[in-house]
């Protein structure tokens, strides 16, 4: 019993010491400030490589009117796609550089969580306050996108239009949406 308690005490002490040495874990990202999630989407026909244009239903004149959607901090594939196709957001890939270079969302910049260790990544300073930024990683358990959004909020508090694309890059490629390869154009 004493040995059992000893193991628990030593492991707890090691864990608590480790937690004090490391930066505190921030589990939740603050929700979007009131009113900042509203986006006006000019209605456009949605075509994907899977869709044969000949089979696509003609767009009804009524549906050409802009639609308004309200985005939360975390957005889905459809919402990310709408922002992308209407040019309403910049995209940030929070995966490691090697993964980014193998393939990323067309036009995305690479900002991995570790890139903040040596100061603010240059691309962060280029983002405009009134433009949305969508950060993604590999979906599922991946939380690097949350960490990058958190760090961006700490680095530039005026950037409020930040979103996490929770389904991530695998969902994007599965949907056949535009991707690119190669290094980040802003990388040194």
């Amino acid at each position, binding site marked *: 019993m004493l040995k*059992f308690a000893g*193991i*628990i005490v030593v*492991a707890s002490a*090691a864990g608590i010491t*480790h*937690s004090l040495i490391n930066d505190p*874990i921030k589990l*939740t990202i603050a929700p979007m400030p009131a009113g900042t999630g509203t986006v006006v989407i000019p209605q456009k026909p949605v075509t994907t490589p899977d869709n044969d244009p000949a089979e696509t239903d003609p767009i009804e004149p009524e549906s050409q009117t802009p639609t308004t959607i309200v985005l939360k901090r975390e957005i889905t594939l459809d919402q990310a796609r709408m922002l992308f196709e209407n040019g309403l957001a910049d995209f940030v890939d929070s995966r490691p550089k090697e993964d980014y270079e193998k393939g990323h969302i067309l036009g995305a910049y690479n900002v991995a969580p570790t890139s903040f260790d040596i100061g603010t990544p240059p691309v962060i300073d280029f983002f405009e306050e009134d433009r949305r930024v969508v950060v993604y990683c590999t979906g599922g358990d*991946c939380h690097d996108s949350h960490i990058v959004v958190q760090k961006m909020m700490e680095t530039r508090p005026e950037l409020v239009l930040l979103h996490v694309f929770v389904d991530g890059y695998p969902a994007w490629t599965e949907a056949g949406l535009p991707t690119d390869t190669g290094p980040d154009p802003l990388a040194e």
Partner: protein
Amino acid sequence: MANALKARGPQNAGTFASWLSLIGRMGAGQVFIFAGLIKIGDPAGVAASIQAFGLIDDESRLIALAAYIIPWTEIIAGVLLVAGLFTRAAATVILLMLAGFVALIWNAMSKGQELECGCFGKIKLFCDGPLGKCNLIQDGVFAALVLLPLILGGGRASADALGKPPADPYADYGDEEEDEAFD
């Protein structure tokens, strides 16, 4: 039987029991060391996995603390189990952790939650997809492995057995008069 084996001590465990214990210790111990090392490099990931169960308040410091304490417990108990030091205590710690994991998985399954397993961080070692039967079976196998050293003790190839010479194999016969005759 367990008490009898325990009373005999690790240095006196039979060869077969020692081998069984060694298999259990190496199997479960190494898996837990690996799982702990993976998690310790990614405490935020562990925290996110714990948070996903929705059992603890998101803002609670408990989640952040657990994200550090769980991997350290896995590593320390795993190393002790592999080394065969405080074998039964280490096996008990691991068994209790496994019971906790099973309870969490069962709870998530009963609620219909589709959660990713944070067992080995981002690595899908034995099971893929959301938490489910595969993870229960996986933890059941680990529990079976841990039960071996828990019941049989560390065996001869363990740190617990060091410095303890095997008892006189003829001690049970206890023929003291004959021993004296050889003096």
